[in-house]
């Protein structure tokens, strides 16, 4: 099978317009005859569902939380990029496109990224119209800030809770459609199977998490907006319920999984404090605008940070990257922190941390100035660690934050299963091997508000999803039976180890061997170790309780079973990619200075993996990335 990306013709800046000009339209009176199933209610799912219902489609929406307002998009702190150029500092759609494709280390599809930049401005307009309270200047116009090392100020923000405010906008638009009847909302439902009829995605099987009942829903298209899979590492900044199950079930039904090894490890997180740790907390990247990152010059220096004089500190980001200093991209900053800690310079009780110091900023801006910019983040830090960051430097360490990989989609966001569309973090398309700050919110909303309404319409108007399917058809029976069997199996193992114990073990393997720095030996070890752990899981996991009631541990058991398959695929993908690019750092491929060494001749492609019936032997398909608009250069932040 060849992967056809369906990129429209024409110069890059005209491709999306060319697509829109030619896309087929569904007659307005016919839209209500089409049922669209939307799974997930974060920025991508919420915005897509609201927009499609506004257009007249009949939309059914599913989420695992008790309310669509709780999707994990809500936790995004920093901001959302757009090429408005309000500050008149030289930003353009081209520049946002270029920064994003370069930031992704030239491993994203050019046409998708340009479209993302092109629709970015509409997102801001839409959100402001909804009443999203973005930060403003005293003159009443919108404020922008520079974020994550960008040379222009293009990030719109709402204090340290931009994701929350954008999600409330999408959620409120969604609830408005619930009121009109355009959206029927199904909270506390987990998608366990995709139903494919005559080669097209035509339905889903969900578990009602309160009653345990397996429910069947038919539709003309299925939109998967289920977020990323960072929780495969057990510890991440993801919410506890974030998982890969819906996407993985689709993968097993024929949707290719693209670039699974591209995992973003965010540099500024609160370090692990002990074995009981259940999740990690991100401190917004904006802190690096004013905080300085350092470790003692002497390995094993146990003095308190205030007692270490300036000339005995190593501001290692400023030293290694004088051009960008503390504002180098996430992948670069994370790796640099890992290197100093691995070399014994780490601080704190675990030695797996570096300082993020605001002493200079407090000297320059005063404590009140720092409080104005970062007050809520400082409070959060103190609440979690019990330390006052106005007095002692923060301790930070990288943590898994975002997954650039995901289900393969074409330009229309359609997966290799016709009628199955994938939006937001769940797809692979826009961030290449590394995502820039403030780009995740942009992508989720671009996909949901501005891309999918045209592409789903085009699919349906072109005859996709035609003819009604009934939930009593054999394909639904089969899917429901498969879901039922898995649940029964999990409950019947009755072993000695808890789901969390397995998950923690998997996370250790992933973090050690498929984490910030990878090598052939470690990846081979991971593949074997995960396969062994997976085999043990089905013999020795303990899942008490019943299936016909709320049973969160049973939900987790299903998710960890899928993580145990995904983890191996991630290791295989990382092993096959004999180069370093973006967040994927292979120790065998680095420059003399320890920077990532890309191998463009061999690896300028998307690795899309096909499930073959056995988790151990996926088939690799390649989508060659051709760059017409930009020249491939080596990222340098010196």
């Amino acid at each position, binding site marked *: 099978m060849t992967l056809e990306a369906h990129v429209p013709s024409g110069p890059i800046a005209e491709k999306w317009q060319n697509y829109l000009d030619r896309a087929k339209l569904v007659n307005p009176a016919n839209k209500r005859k089409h049922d669209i199933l939307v799974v997930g209610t974060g920025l991508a799912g919420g915005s897509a569902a609201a927009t499609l219902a506004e257009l007249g489609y009949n939309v059914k929406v599913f989420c695992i939380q008790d*309310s669509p307002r709780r999707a994990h998009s809500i936790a995004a702190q920093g901001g959302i990029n757009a090429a408005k150029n309000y500050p008149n500092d030289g930003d353009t759609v081209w520049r946002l496109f270029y920064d994003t494709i370069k930031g992704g280390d030239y491993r994203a599809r050019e046409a998708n990224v340009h479209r993302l930049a092109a629709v970015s401005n509409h997102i801001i307009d*839409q959100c*402001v*119209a909804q009443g999203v309270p973005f930060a403003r200047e005293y003159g009443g116009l919108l404020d922008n800030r520079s974020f994550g090392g960008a040379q222009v100020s293009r990030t719109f923000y709402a204090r340290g809770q931009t994701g929350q405010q954008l999600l409330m906008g999408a959620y409120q638009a969604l609830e408005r459609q619930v009121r009109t009847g355009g959206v029927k909302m199904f909270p506390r439902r987990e998608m366990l199977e995709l139903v494919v009829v005559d080669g097209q995605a035509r339905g889903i099987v969900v578990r009602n998490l309160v009653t345990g009942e397996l429910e069947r829903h038919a539709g003309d298209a299925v939109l998967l907006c289920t977020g990323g899979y960072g929780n495969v590492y057990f510890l991440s900044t993801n919410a506890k319920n974030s998982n890969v199950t819906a996407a993985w079930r689709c993968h097993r039904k024929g949707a290719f999984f693209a670039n699974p090894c591209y995992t973003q490890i965010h540099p500024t997180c609160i370090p692990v404090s002990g074995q*009981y740790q259940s*999740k990690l907390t991100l401190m917004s990247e904006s802190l690096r605008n004013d905080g300085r990152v350092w470790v003692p010059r002497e390995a094993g220096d146990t003095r308190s940070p205030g007692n270490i004089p300036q000339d005995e500190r190593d501001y290692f980001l400023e030293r290694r990257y004088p051009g960008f200093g503390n504002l180098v991209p996430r992948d670069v900053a994370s790796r640099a922190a890992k290197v100093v800690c691995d070399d014994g310079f780490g601080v704190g009780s675990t030695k797996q941390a570096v300082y993020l110091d605001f002493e200079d900023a407090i000297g320059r801006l005063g404590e009140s100035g720092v409080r104005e910019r970062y007050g809520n983040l400082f409070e959060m830090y103190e609440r979690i660690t019990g330390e006052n960051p106005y007095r002692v430097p923060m301790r930070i360490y990288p943590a898994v934050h975002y997954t650039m990989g995901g289900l393969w989609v074409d330009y229309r966001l359609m997966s290799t299963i016709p009628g199955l569309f994938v939006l937001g973090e769940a797809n692979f398309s826009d961030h290449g091997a590394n995502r820039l700050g403030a780009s995740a919110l942009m992508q989720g909303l671009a996909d949901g508000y501005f891309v999918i309404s045209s592409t789903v319409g085009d699919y349906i108007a072109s005859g996709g999803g035609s003819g009604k399917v009934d939930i009593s058809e054999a394909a639904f029976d089969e899917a429901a039976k498969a879901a039922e069997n898995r649940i029964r199996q999990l409950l019947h193992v009755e072993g000695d180890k808890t789901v969390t114990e397995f998950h923690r073990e998997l996370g250790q393997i992933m973090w050690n061997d498929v984490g910030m720095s990878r090598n052939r030996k470690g990846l081979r070890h991971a593949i074997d170790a995960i396969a062994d752990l997976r085999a043990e899981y089905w013999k020795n996991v303990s899942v008490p309780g019943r299936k016909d009631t709320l049973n969160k541990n049973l939900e987790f058991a299903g998710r960890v079973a899928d993580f145990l398959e995904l983890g191996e695929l991630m290791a295989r993908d990382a092993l096959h990619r004999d180069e370093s690019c973006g967040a994927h750092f292979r120790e065998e491929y680095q420059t003399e200075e320890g920077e990532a060494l890309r191998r463009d001749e061999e690896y300028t492609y998307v690795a899309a993996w096909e499930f073959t019936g056995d988790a151990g032997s996926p088939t690799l398909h390649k989508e060659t990335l051709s760059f017409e608009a930009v020249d491939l250069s080596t990222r340098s932040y010196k």
Partner: protein
Amino acid sequence: MSQAMTIHLKVWRQSGPDAKGKLVDYRLEDLNEDMSFLEALDVLNEELIKKGEDPVEFDNDCREGICGSCGLMVGGIAHGPMKATAVCQLHMRHYKDGDTIVVEPFRATAFPIIKDLVVDRSAFDRIIAAGGYVSVDTGGAPDANSLPIPKEHVDEAFDFATCIGCGACVASCPNASASLFTGAKVTHLAHLPQGQVERKERVVRMVEQMKAEGFGDCSNHGECEAVCPKQISIAAIAKMRREYLRALFG
């Protein structure tokens, strides 16, 4: 390193909506002061699963105080004793070795119990669906800077837009009123020019939905403000009342 703690928990266990519930005693050893309260409950659940017993069900997700999933009465206080803190951000360092902590679900007629500490807060979604939005379809919005808004208006709107919909306000109100929740959304949108067009019908519809859901009236206790993890001011309720009267008689 921090000292190991022993904590005695009394946890509300109820197997289903119609089952009779009761407080059950548990003893947790070797807790650590850097743990969050929910991580202590994780420890309890791991022990229960090891014994083949049903773990305690409680809603939680982001564990960083923003998604609003978690909500427990801890020691009789919604989200526990720390001000401006959702229970997922409550840490064990605020307790002493040997303490006893009572853990119960949020209780309100409009929040029926599903199981153990999990309640159904979907009434909040229906209040928002009644009018908690600006009716703008996707596309066609004017340029974002074509509408200047004084910074102080946006800042004030923001203070009310930070609600996480956790329901602590309802759980701590003697009348189980949802006035702070509803008032926060009404106030957020009433402070912004985008919210003016539908200002009157919004407040009327939301207030009526709130009543229809079985939430009580506000009698100015102020407990809601005291427990709100986002410190939303009770001024929202006064604003909601003014908006309501203005809509009916203004």
